[in-house]
């Protein structure tokens, strides 16, 4: 009887020991997010407010007050929209990660994509079915090249991509906001009476329209889902994906085996840049309608955390992005009790800190298996 119980426990523990590496990979982000909510709750408590009330508002703000409201997507639409934008920048970081590159430059690529979309959205007046894909292609190529430039610098000149992409972010920000938007492509050039800063509005045919009334959710979500599927297939099923992964996991072996690792890195950074750019384009063509005077939503930087929390896999990134998209939308609801919506950043930041320090979490998880394998007491020779 006793032995049977041991058998069962040991069965579970053996299974855990065999699989713990893989399972931990899933558990780490989830545990990180849970801890983050706790930390954030303490912060709310500090301010003298009720974390439970706050989280209730957060939840209702994210998904809706009732099942019916949730299904109508009126409330959740906003979060899903944000999630779509985050998915694209997150995927951008994920693709680069697979090739062993750290794309801190999603922000810059996002901005390049946004301004290019604003320009062609304004210039083109084609039927949406042709015009919008065309804009997205142009955006993809431009931002893609901007991303690939960092890979090129790494290959040709040995410059670490983290530094170059950071620098390229700020180059993009300053050139777009302090030159293009205020200079050659300013709204005043086209409409001297305009009172707004920024670029002129894009043509109506270039707009991504809301899917249904009462929400801002537009077809960005379809673009994001298509991107997830395409990237998933590229990484897991194609020859290119195989080469990207080989390069990312062991560039020496990949090179030795005859894989053109330079090309692989450039292609993956091109894809990464294109995805971030398309993300920026979705914002311009969807919600913004033009490039505003100052436009730094930070989705590029957020993409990094989406990818990390999503375990740098396409599907994981998507889940993380939708989750944090909803969280951000929901956080707006918390303003009712005086908690600013950047509250979502706190949760995101704390969760990422724990993902960064995941060896700590893994260590604790692994202890479960190591220490608790139950053994019926038997003769022991005293050594260990």
């Amino acid at each position: 009887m006793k032995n049977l119980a041991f058998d069962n426990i040991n069965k579970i523990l053996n299974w855990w020991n065999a699989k713990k590496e893989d399972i931990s990979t899933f558990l780490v982000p989830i545990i990180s997010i849970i801890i983050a909510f706790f930390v954030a709750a303490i912060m709310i408590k500090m301010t003298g407010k009720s974390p439970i009330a706050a989280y209730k508002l957060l939840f209702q703000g994210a998904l809706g007050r009732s099942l019916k409201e949730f299904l109508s997507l009126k409330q959740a639409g906003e979060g899903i929209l944000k999630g779509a934008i985050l998915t694209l920048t997150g995927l951008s970081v994920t693709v680069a990660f697979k090739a062993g590159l750290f794309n801190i430059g999603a922000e810059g690529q996002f901005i390049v994509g946004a301004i290019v979309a604003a320009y062609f959205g304004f210039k083109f007046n084609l039927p949406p079915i042709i015009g919008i894909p065309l804009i997205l292609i142009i955006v993809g190529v431009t931002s893609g090249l901007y991303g690939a430039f960092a890979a090129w610098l790494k290959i040709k000149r040995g410059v670490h991509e983290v530094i170059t992409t950071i620098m390229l972010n700020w180059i993009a920000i300053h050139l777009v906001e302090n030159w293009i938007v205020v200079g050659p492509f300013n709204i005043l050039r086209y409409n001297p009476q305009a009172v707004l800063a920024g670029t002129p509005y894009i043509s109506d045919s270039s707009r991504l329209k809301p899917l249904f009334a009462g929400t801002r959710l537009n077809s960005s979500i379809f673009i994001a889902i298509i991107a997830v599927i395409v990237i998933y297939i590229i990484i897991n099923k194609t020859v290119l994906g195989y080469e990207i992964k080989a390069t990312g996991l062991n560039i020496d072996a990949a090179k030795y085996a005859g894989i053109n690792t330079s090309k692989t890195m450039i292609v993956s950074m091109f894809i990464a840049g294109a995805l971030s750019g398309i993300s920026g384009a979705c914002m311009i063509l969807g919600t913004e309608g033009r490039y505003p005077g100052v436009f730094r939503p930070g989705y590029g930087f957020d993409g990094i955390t989406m990818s990390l929390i999503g375990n740098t896999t396409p599907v994981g990134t998507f889940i993380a992005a939708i989750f944090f998209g909803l969280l951000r939308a929901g956080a707006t609801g918390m303003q009712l009790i005086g908690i600013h919506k950047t509250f979502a950043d706190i949760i995101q930041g704390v969760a990422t800190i724990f993902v960064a320090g995941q060896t700590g979490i893994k260590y604790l998880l692994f202890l479960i298996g190591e220490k608790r394998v139950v053994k019926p007491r038997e003769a022991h020779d005293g050594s260990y």
Partner: protein
Amino acid sequence: MEVIKIIISFLSSMLQFATPIIIAGLGGVISENAGVTNIALEGMMRMGGFFAVFGAYISSNKIDPILGGRDPLAGNPWVGILLAIIIGILAGLLHGYISISLKGNQIVSAVAINVFALGGMTFFLERYFNTTGHSPSVNSFMGKPFIPILAKIPIVGELFRVMNVFVWLALILPFVVHFYLYHTHWGLRHRAVGEHPKAADTLGVDVYKVRYFAVIMSGVFAALAGASMSIGQLDLFDNHMPAGLGFIALAAMIFGKWKPLGTLLAALFFTLANVVQIFIQTYAPQVLKIIPRGFFLALPYFLTILILAGFVGKATPPAADGVPYEKGEKL
């Protein structure tokens, strides 16, 4: 006379603008010379900036006669500095714990700290000052020359007038750090840990200790840099702070080849581009039609890429920069 005035005001603007970049850049120098990258300078500056204001605010015991509550102008800015230092230590400790003890990814850790600082400081701003714009004005070092007597000197006194405690720090610290790194035995060990931690370890240098010290100091410097913006250049914390200066500091550190005096020069040089742009705007706005502002602002980043790529000079980071050190086991 007019020309001299312009020059003096040019120099004093430069000093003021360069101050946070120099101090934060030195933070980068200290950390990276021990082998830990720190792209969290931006986030750490933001935390330091907020808590400096917060410290100056809570040290006030007076009641605001009109609004009630604390009188923000009656506090002590030195408490602000103290609080900034404490938050810098904590932030450095966090980055150090993840990077050194847990051997986590240093970039990820830094990104997380940046994200947290972004949301966290807005949260605190709202919590304590009921706003998401900027804090009320507090008692600060803004416009308070550290050595008032010098400010009385005719003409050049103008320059000393803007030199508050942070500006002096920014001018002195590069030499202190230089002295530390190149003329003390601690500095020798510090650099050895950044170049070849194993070699240092085999000689009995405690690699973890040196790295923790470096990252914590880096946090302190970055936090002070943030404080120099909020209670040095201004007397309040603006929610946009530090508006990317942490990344310029990173660029200055690289452009300065990871050396303290190089970073000082690079920071001054980068500021020059910015101040020239501002002066052109004031005195010769037509020039901006030919060379747009964005070009001046993007210049530091552009030059940093060029120098890293070896198109202008060559900058090589410390050999073990960013590489976690595994003590003992497995050579």
